């Protein structure tokens, strides 16, 4: 194991895949000369040159589509968005084209590519820079969506994503890039897409959380342990395909569940997982599933409002208290 920052894990995954496969290239705003807006592509230009590490204009729709076309025509693009908040401009290419072209043409082509970049909020950047899009893309058939929480997951899953023969959205977080963690130094380390990981074992309540929210859940679990409540944290890592079996198995043990989701409440990961649990494990539940999400309100700039807006450990603890009927 080696201790790496999240950004280094991402960089290494890209580096290894570029090294291994000539058809893999990286493209996006400031990825080359600037080494990435968040330094996630540090050194890649030096190593692979201007042909394979490409700075784009601010033309999200255009370069996302150029990625789709290049993927159809034999390459394996990694298209970086400075954040998924700007990928909204490219949504037509992701939703109408990358996810649908193969099906529409009866399987004659495929779109093996990765769209990646930070997801969700990164502090006080205001309403247009703060939305978590993982659930939204998970709505669309044909796409895989990954939102890892730790460097090890990031490395193994990004390598799998790059090798996947279909379109994968790989989400990161500005606030996690500096975070350190042990990363496997196995040769060619990959993690299968769609497999959850039990990150903490416990018998009293299941907490489902990924991405940035995993760290909030972890804080909450540490607090709760002091009060004698042992939470089991399941990190799905992949939003879609979603590993419902892992969650159901845990809920059958704990009989209670809280889902923490960085998106707004309507029709997101939390509601989907809540639905599946009630269908698959109804008889095992000792309390209705609870969720912690953003409120149904845009991100405010002002610090105290922003803190109020973003889910925190306290809200997770309250939700756990609700499902365990603790006062």
């Amino acid at each position, binding site marked *: 194991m080696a201790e790496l920052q999240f950004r280094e894990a991402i960089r290494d995954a890209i580096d290894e895949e570029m090294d291994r496969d000539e058809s893999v290239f990286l493209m996006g*705003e*400031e990825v*080359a*000369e*600037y080494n990435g*807006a968040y330094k996630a592509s540090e050194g890649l230009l030096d190593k692979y*040159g*201007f*042909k394979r590490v*490409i*700075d*784009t*204009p*601010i*033309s*999200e*729709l*255009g370069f996302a589509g150029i990625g789709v076309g290049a993927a159809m025509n034999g390459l394996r693009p990694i298209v970086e968005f400075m954040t998924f*908040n*700007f990928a*909204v*401009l490219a949504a037509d290419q992701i939703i109408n084209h990358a996810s649908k072209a193969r099906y529409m043409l009866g399987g004659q082509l495929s779109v093996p590519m990765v769209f990646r970049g930070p997801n969700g909020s990164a*502090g*006080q*950047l*205001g*309403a*247009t*820079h703060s939305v978590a899009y993982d659930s939204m893309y998970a709505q669309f058939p044909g796409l895989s969506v990954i939102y890892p929480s730790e460097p090890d997951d990031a490395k193994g899953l990004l390598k799998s994503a790059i090798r996947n023969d279909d379109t994968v959205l790989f989400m990161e977080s500005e606030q996690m890039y500096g975070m350190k963690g042990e990363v496997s130094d196995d040769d060619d380390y990959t993690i299968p897409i769609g497999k959850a990981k039990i990150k903490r074992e416990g018998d009293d309540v299941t907490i489902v959380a990924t991405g940035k929210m995993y760290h909030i859940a972890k804080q909450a679990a540490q607090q709760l342990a002091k009060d004698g409540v042992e939470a089991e944290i399941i990190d799905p890592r992949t939003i879609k395909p979603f590993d419902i079996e892992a969650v159901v198995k845990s809920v059958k043990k704990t009989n209670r569940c809280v889902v923490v989701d960085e998106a*707004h*409440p*309507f029709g997101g990961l939390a509601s989907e997982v809540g639905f599946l649990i009630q269908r698959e494990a109804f008889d095992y539940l000792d309390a209705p599933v609870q969720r912690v999400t953003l*409120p*149904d*309100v*845009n991100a*405010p*700039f*002002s*610090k*105290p*409002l922003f803190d*109020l*807006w973003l889910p925190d450990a306290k809200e997770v603890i309250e939700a756990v208290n609700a499902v365990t009927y603790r006062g």
Partner: protein
Amino acid sequence: MAKKQKEAFFTPIGTDESNNGKIDKAVKLPKPTKKKHKDLGLSDDDVLEMYEQMYLQRRFEERAMQMYQKGKFGGFLHLYIGQEAVSTGTVFALNDDDDIITAYRDHGWGLVRGVSANEGMAELYGKATGCSKGKGGSMHFANVENHFWGGYGIVGGHIPIGGGLAFANKYQENDRVTACFMGDGAVDQGALHETLNMSQLWKLPAIYVVENNGYSMGTAAYRHTVNEIHERSKGYGMKSAVFNGMDVFTVYENMKKIADEVREDSMPWFVEIRTYRYRGHSMSDPQKYRTKEELKEYQKTDPIERMKTYILDEKIAAEKDLDKINDRIEEEVLEAVEFAENSDFPADEALWEDMFADEPHFHDRKEA
């Protein structure tokens, strides 16, 4: 490097590789106007006011930067320093009820369009007394009452909105002109091109202005866009202009002429104003993409220094009069910092306010 390999490059290579130590010029400044203020119909007082406006923008941002570095507030902070002649010349050229909209580098625009230093600084601090009640921060200054429709953070996102403001003005036959400002980076967004086409097609009374400051974040203009920016409008048969944005008179002269014409014939314009950003893109920019020498070259054309020299040369005011203005501004800005620090943050309930004009509704709102 082997030729074949080089030909397979996509984006042109940048500073590190190409300049061989010579000073790169990120943007070529056209010659400023030779006209004196009187030739342009500006009084001595107008000139002093222009100076004051530019100085206010400069000092406001220098103080803001200081406060940011002290950790007084967070978020992004994109400084307009170096570009003040563009906002100032434009606002003097337009009527007060002409509409202005811009991107996130918006402090200068707010200040010249009636956001007070107090309200501006309070917005940076996220205070309830800010021009956008602390909801928007640095990127979202606005004073809608004074026809400044705000700063927007999605590159290119506000361009069609500028077209929409102009559309409504034409619809309402009110003779107002819309000026929509964007960075050179925004030129590469499809939104611009769709908007230019419809504007020409529908004869919208709008001026689309690119503030070409040489860089889009760390990418020099020649590395992100091809050909001359102002010539983009040719394909749409749209009138265009390019001029110097480091000289407030040049901006004033051209924008006045263009605005008058738009008011007359309701045909849109596409304009490139060349200027230069002195500071980093935002506060965390190591600026490795340009040399200190390049920056110094442009600082020699500083719009405020230039104005000061003009005022003294033309004997519009004496050095001590300018000092008095400077002192007044200095005080105004310091007071603004104090005002911002002493102001309250928005109350918790404000989180839920301003979402709807009509009956508010929130999905699954938890009771406090």
